[in-house]
C-alpha cells in the first residue's frame, strides 16, 4: 500500500495537479458560499472546466470543488442562516446562534478544524477499505449487483425528506430516462422517436444542470429576493481550550459515524449530519443548550458530513455505485473521461484512484490553510445580490449543456429539465432520486437482463444466490417498515370509529 500512497502523492503533488486542487477548493468554496448553491449544483456548474483535462487531473479538481463547496455551505449556514444544501441544515441550528452571540469565529473555526480531522479519518478509512472491498466486489455477479442496486435505491427512497411514493416515482422516472437510446443488446431504438441526437441516450450534464442549476434559478427568482442579513464581524477563528474540550468527542464520534453512514447506499452527508446532531444532543450533559449555540452541535454534524464524504467514495470507487447525487455527478464525470468506476478501477487506473485519495488529504489541508484567513472575503461574496448572480449561473448551465457533445439539442434538453426540476420542486418531488435512478438505471437493467439470461428467465436466481437474496430481503424489509406507521394510523382510526 505504501507504494500506492507514494504513487498517489507523486501524482497529486505535480505542480499542475496541486494547483488544480487549490483552484478547485478555492472556486468550490467561492460558489458554495453563495446561498442556495450546494455541492451538487456547484460540481454540475463547474464540471465543464474539467472537460479538457486528463482523468486524474479532472477528478482531483472536482474533489477539490466538492470539499470547497461543502465547507462554503457551512460558512453560509453559520453567517447567514441559509443552508446551501440539506447536510448544512443542522449547522444552522447552533452555528447561527453562536454567530448571533458574537462567536462566529469559533463556530467557523471548529467547523473547519473538525472537518479536517474527520476528512483525514475518512481518507484513512477509504485507503484501508478500498482494496479488500474491490477484491470482494470482483466476486459479485449480475444478480448480486442487481440486489445491491435495488437495496441502494430503496434506501435512497426510504430516506426521502418528503413523500416516499414521490421519491419512488422520481427514481423510476430516472430509470426510464436512462433507457432512452439504442439498446446495447438488441440494437433496438428505445423512446428516441427517430431523433438522431437521442441514439446515444440522454447526456448526464444537461439533465443535472437543468434539474439543479436552472430549476433552482426559476424557483429562487419566483420568491421575493429580500436582502439577507449577513453577520460580518468575525474574529478569534481558533477555538479556545474550553471550546476544544466541549467539542473534541463530538468530532471523534462524528468522524466515525459519518464514515460508516457514508459507506451505506443512500447514506451520505445529510443523513450523517442529522444522526450526529441527534447523538450529540442525547449524550450531552447540557442538552438544553442545543439550538441556542452549543459548539458540539456544530462540531459533530460538520465532522460527520465531511467524514461521510470520504465514506461515500468507497462504494463509488470499489463497486461502481454512486450513493448520493454528488457521487452520481463524480461517477458521470469519470465516465465522460473514459474511466469506469468499479472493482477494476484500482488496477486499471491506479493514478486516478490514488491520485484522488491523496488529493483528498491535500484538499483538506488546503481547506484549512486557505479558508480560515479568507473568511472576510467569503463574507463579501455573500453580499452579492442574486439578481447579478443568476445570469452567471444560467451562463454556466448553457456552456455546460453544450460543451459535452457540442449539440444545441442538449441546450434544449437542459431547458426542458430546468422546467421539470422547477415543477418537481413545486409539487414536492425530490430531483435527487431521479438523478440516481438515471445513473444506476443502466447498471440495473444490464444486471437484471444478464441474470435472467444466466437463469433461463427464472427470477428465482435472485433468491438462490445468498448475497443477492440478503440485499433484496433488506430492501423489502425497509419498504414494509415504511408502511407500518401508516397501518398503525389506520388501525387507530378504525378503533376510534368502532368505539363511537
Amino acid at each position: 500500500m505504501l507504494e500506492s500512497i507514494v504513487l498517489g502523492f507523486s501524482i497529486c503533488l505535480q505542480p499542475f495537479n496541486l494547483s488544480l486542487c487549490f483552484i478547485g477548493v478555492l472556486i468550490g468554496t467561492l460558489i458554495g458560499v453563495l446561498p442556495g448553491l450546494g455541492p451538487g449544483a456547484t460540481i454540475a456548474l463547474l464540471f465543464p472546466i474539467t472537460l479538457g483535462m486528463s482523468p486524474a487531473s479532472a477528478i482531483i479538481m472536482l474533489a477539490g470543488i466538492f470539499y470547497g463547496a461543502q465547507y462554503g455551505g457551512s460558512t453560509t449556514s453559520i453567517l447567514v442562516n441559509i443552508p446551501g444544501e440539506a447536510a448544512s441544515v443542522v449547522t444552522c441550528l447552533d452555528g447561527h446562534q453562536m454567530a448571533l452571540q458574537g462567536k462566529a469565529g469559533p463556530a467557523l473555526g471548529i467547523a473547519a478544524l473538525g472537518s479536517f480531522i474527520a476528512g483525514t479519518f475518512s481518507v484513512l478509512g477509504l485507503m484501508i477499505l478500498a482494496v479488500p472491498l474491490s477484491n470482494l466486489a470482483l466476486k459479485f455477479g449480475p444478480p448480486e449487483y442487481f440486489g445491491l442496486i435495488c437495496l441502494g435505491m430503496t434506501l435512497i427512497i426510504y430516506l426521502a425528506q418528503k413523500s416516499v411514493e414521490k421519491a419512488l416515482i422520481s427514481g423510476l422516472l430516472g430509470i426510464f430516462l436512462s433507457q432512452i437510446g439504442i439498446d446495447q443488446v438488441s440494437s433496438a431504438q428505445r423512446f428516441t422517436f427517430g431523433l438522431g441526437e437521442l441514439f446515444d441516450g440522454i447526456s448526464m450534464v444537461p439533465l443535472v444542470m437543468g434539474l439543479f442549476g436552472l430549476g433552482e434559478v426559476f424557483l429562487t427568482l419566483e420568491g421575493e429576493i429580500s436582502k439577507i442579513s449577513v453577520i460580518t464581524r468575525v474574529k478569534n477563528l481558533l477555538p479556545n481550550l474550553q471550546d476544544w474540550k466541549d467539542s473534541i468527542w463530538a468530532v471523534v464520534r462524528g468522524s466515525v459515524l459519518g464514515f460508516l453512514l457514508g459507506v451505506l447506499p443512500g447514506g451520505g452527508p445529510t443523513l450523517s449530519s442529522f444522526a450526529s446532531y441527534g447523538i450529540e444532543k442525547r449524550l450531552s450533559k447540557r442538552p438544553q443548550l442545543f439550538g441556542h449555540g452549543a459548539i458540539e452541535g456544530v462540531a459533530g454534524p460538520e465532522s460527520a458530513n465531511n467524514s461521510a464524504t470520504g465514506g461515500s467514495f468507497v462504494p463509488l470507487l470499489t463497486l461502481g455505485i454512486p450513493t448520493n447525487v454528488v457521487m452520481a455527478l463524480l461517477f458521470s464525470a469519470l465516465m465522460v473521461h473514459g474511466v469506469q468506476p468499479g472493482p477494476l478501477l484500482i488496477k486499471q487506473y491506479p493514478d486516478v484512484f490514488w491520485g484522488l485519495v491523496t488529493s483528498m488529504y491535500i484538499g483538506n489541508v488546503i481547506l484549512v490553510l486557505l479558508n480560515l484567513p479568507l473568511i472576510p472575503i467569503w463574507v463579501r461574496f455573500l453580499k452579492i445580490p442574486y439578481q447579478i448572480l443568476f445570469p452567471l449561473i444560467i451562463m454556466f448551465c448553457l456552456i455546460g449543456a453544450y460543451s459535452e457533445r457540442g449539440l444545441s439539442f442538449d441546450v434544449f434538453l437542459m431547458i426542458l429539465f430546468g422546467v421539470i426540476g422547477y415543477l418537481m420542486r413545486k409539487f414536492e418531488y425530490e430531483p435527487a432520486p431521479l438523478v440516481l435512478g438515471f445513473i444506476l438505471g443502466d447498471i440495473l437493467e444490464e444486471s437484471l437482463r444478464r441474470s435472467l439470461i444466466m437463469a433461463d428467465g427464472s427470477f428465482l436466481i435472485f433468491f438462490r444466490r445468498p448475497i443477492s437474496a440478503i440485499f433484496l430481503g433488506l430492501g423489502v424489509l425497509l419498504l414494509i417498515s415504511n408502511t407500518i406507521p401508516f397501518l398503525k394510523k389506520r388501525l387507530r382510526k378504525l378503533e376510534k370509529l368502532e368505539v363511537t
Partner: protein
Amino acid sequence: MLLALAICIFSFKLSLYARRGPGAGFMGFGTGGILFLLSLHLFLKNLFFPNRETLEGPILKNKKINVSILSSLIFYALFLERLGYILDLFLVLLFLFAISKTMKWYAIIGTSILISLGSYLLFSTFLNIGLPLGVLKVLR
C-alpha cells in the same frame, strides 16, 4: 399516469422477451407498470384526501421573470449555431441583466461584453471546449 401508460405501450411494442432472454422493452414495461400503479395511488389519494398534498405556492408565482428567462434561453438554443456563442450569449446576458434591474444600461452592456468574451476565452481557448463562432467566423 399518461406518461406511464405511454412507456408501457412503447415498451410492449419493443418486445418484452427475446429468444436469448428479456427483450429491449422488458425493463421499460416494468418501470412503466410500477410508475402507473404509483401514479394511480397518488391520484386516488389526492382525490379522497385532497388536503394532504400541499403545493409549494402557486405555479409561476412570478410569471413575468420566469417566462422571460425561459424565452431568452429558447432564443439562445435556437440561434446558438447561427449567431455563435459570443454574440448569442451577449444578447441573452444583456436581456437577463436588463430584467434584473440592478445596473445602469452602460454597465449592463459592458458586463455582458466582458462575460461573453471572457467565458469564450476561458472555455474555448484555454480549456479546448468547442464553442461555435457563428457569424463571427469572418473575423478569424
